[in-house]
């Protein structure tokens, strides 16, 4: 049995593209997806910038053949991404092997719940959205769309590290033989709930987010759906699958420092990276590129930067960048979006620029990559950290 778990398909819809190819073109073309908000009516529309998927709900409904206003936005983004992943893997019958669906979300169907919260009691028109509030609903809708039956299905919500944890669980379940195939990732649509929530924490930037810059003002919220197909060696061999890359390492730890903030020294982040390296059987110097969490909040980038220095050593941090300047912070899905980007980096031997970076941070000597670069990559490390101290790291590798 190989050490890594094979990735045989991936799909994504984000602010910088409606599929994998479009996302990659935006990444190397340095095309940001951050703009003024258009799909949600909010009084904060002039003070914030967001990474919206460039499609209205009706366009998404049309694409999926749904009647108007039947689903909230999260399940639609999730279905689109999961379908693309399954298509790429070449799966024709989702139930032909022991398959599990592991999704993640922070808000699920909140976009509709907040819209009809009191209206439910006045008329029946939107009653079908009542049951769409709970986080598992979007996952069930994705499962139904994919035709998944009698299968393992769950949803993870560990704030901004959720999708990374979905990938971690999928890899563990395949390694242990509990599943032959896992469809893993997440989906989160923008909502007034998250916009106002992050506003109360005063960590939203009123302009383009600038990860790892000394003058960073906070994050831009984003939305996305992103899924990967993980398959066992048995399937890869039997079905002669083209393997895109391998999940070779994963680590999960808790910072246990504060309800929302990361510790100054990034203890949780250090532990997550250490665990991931150990699972992968790699040393820090084997990592060729780090796709950082890099949300552009004062707290995250300082904590993560210090954690990277602790893991790799002063002056030895590998080339790194945050892609949040492209997509915004897609919350639960961030780890999924960035896993897709990390696989693309491995496939194309490409490092993405950390857009909007101008001034190095005063606390340490760390310079993110600012230009799109070609480099032979074997191992990419991707970080995702969230509220509640949740820290997760994935290592994706070209070879098993």
């Amino acid at each position: 049995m190989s050490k890594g778990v094979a990735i045989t398909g991936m799909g994504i819809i984000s602010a910088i593209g409606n599929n994998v190819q479009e996302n990659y073109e935006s990444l190397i073309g340095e095309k940001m997806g951050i703009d003024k908000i258009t799909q949600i009516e909010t009084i904060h529309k002039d003070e914030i910038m967001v990474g919206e998927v460039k499609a209205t709900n009706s366009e998404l409904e049309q694409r999926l053949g749904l009647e108007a206003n039947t689903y909230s936005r999260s399940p639609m983004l999730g279905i689109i991404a999961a379908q693309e992943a399954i298509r790429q893997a070449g799966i024709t019958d989702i139930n032909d092997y022991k398959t599990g669906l592991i999704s993640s979300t922070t808000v699920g169907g909140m976009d509709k719940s907040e819209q009809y919260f009191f209206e439910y009691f006045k008329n029946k028109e939107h009653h079908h959205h009542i049951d769409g509030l709970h986080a598992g609903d979007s996952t069930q809708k994705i499962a139904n769309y994919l035709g998944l039956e009698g299968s393992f299905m769950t949803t993870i919500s560990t704030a901004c590290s959720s999708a990374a944890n979905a990938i971690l669980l999928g890899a563990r379940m395949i390694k242990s033989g509990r599943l032959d195939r896992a469809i893993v990732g997440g989906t989160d649509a923008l909502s007034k709930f998250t916009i106002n929530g992050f506003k109360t924490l005063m960590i939203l930037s009123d302009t383009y987010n600038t990860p790892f810059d000394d003058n960073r003002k906070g994050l831009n919220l984003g939305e996305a759906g992103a899924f990967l197909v993980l398959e066992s060696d048995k399937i890869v061999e039997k079905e002669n699958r083209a393997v895109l890359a391998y999940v070779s390492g994963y680590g999960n730890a808790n910072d246990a420092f504060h309800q929302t903030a990361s510790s100054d020294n990034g203890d949780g982040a250090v532990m997550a990276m250490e665990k991931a390296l150990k699972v992968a059987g790699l040393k820090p110097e084997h990592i060729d590129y780090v796709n950082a969490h890099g949300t552009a909040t004062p707290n995250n980038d300082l904590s993560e930067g210090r954690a990277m220095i602790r893991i790799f050593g002063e002056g030895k941090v590998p080339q790194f960048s945050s892609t949040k300047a492209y997509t915004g912070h897609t919350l639960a899905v961030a780890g999924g979006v960035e896993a897709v980007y990390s696989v693309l980096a491995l496939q194309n031997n490409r490092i993405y620029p950390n857009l909007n970076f101008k001034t190095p941070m005063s606390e340490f000597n760390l310079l993110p990559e600012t230009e799109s670069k070609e480099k032979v990559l074997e191992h990419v490390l991707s970080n995702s950290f969230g509220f509640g101290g949740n820290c997760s790291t994935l290592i994706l590798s070209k070879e098993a």
Partner: protein
Amino acid sequence: MKKSVYINSVGSVSAQKTYDNSTFLDEIVPYEATELKVVDPDYKAYIPPAAARRMAKGIKMSTVSSQTALKEAGLENVDAIIVGTGLGCLDDSAKFVSDIINNDEQFLTPTRFIQSSHNTVAGQIALGLGCKGYNFTYVNSAVSFESSLLDAQLQIENSEANNILVGGVDELVDHHVQSHQLIGHFKNEPVTQKTLLSSNTEGSIMAEGSHFFVLSNEKQASTYAELKGVEIYNSLSLENLSSQVQSFLDHSDTELEAIDLVVMGNNGDSNFDGYYDSLNQGIFKYTPQAYFKHLSGEYDTATGFAFWLSSKIIKTQTVPDIVKLNSLEKPPKTVLIYNQYRGQNHSLVLLKKC
């Protein structure tokens, strides 16, 4: 060689007086209602006032049940914390949404938003214990708790952890009850313990609760039972249900005849209790049967109550009369829990005396 998984302790806050581990359903709380609140322990005895001031009810309940479980297991810390919750600290989420609407997105405060994050219970427990280990939160409706169990089982079997704090928690919230009454998920007419299953109306009665357990790779004096198997199915048809249960038992090396008690998730919903009836009248016709939602009420992590109940039954070797569904009796050594919610999110959990 896969390691065995032991249930070394329990902690429970529910609609019954379960927070005291020295008792076992000695007194039953009567009701005639459409919803059930928990019997509140004296939270102040567990939580210092400075820590309690921002705590949502779900966190308070979970502080009590997790501390109870840790104490009984004789542990000060664990290797991992895994929590399931269908809706998280829903009361704060609902209030935050109301505030957004009523105040037109102005003057909102962060506390309600922070508590709304589904992982807030797991995060707060970790913060309280200073536990930097694996930390996970599952949020998949009626299998949120089972997802946590399965994850813990996987880690202990594969020697990734020795002691894991596993739990489930959900809050009872007015807006949720009222909105789901509109669509028949919860009953509009009050029921009692005795009439829940015979009500012959659609929906169930919403409740709340928090149940935590220490799962371990080592048996000790406090051990309740061994966890032999957990499985989750997103959907199952009535026709395939029996064969799926059979295949789960085969996989767990357990004969159908070896099951001494089945604990069923009947919740009095006339549209969906048929799943339980088909097993009770079918493959489990000659098996002692029990139910629990007439005591716990229905919530996404109500199976945490079933897991508590089954653990207690095995440890004490007594099946309280109040939970019996039929008159068959066998010494309860092997117990199977089956649950589903509205025809979806089915789960099977197998426990054995050890």
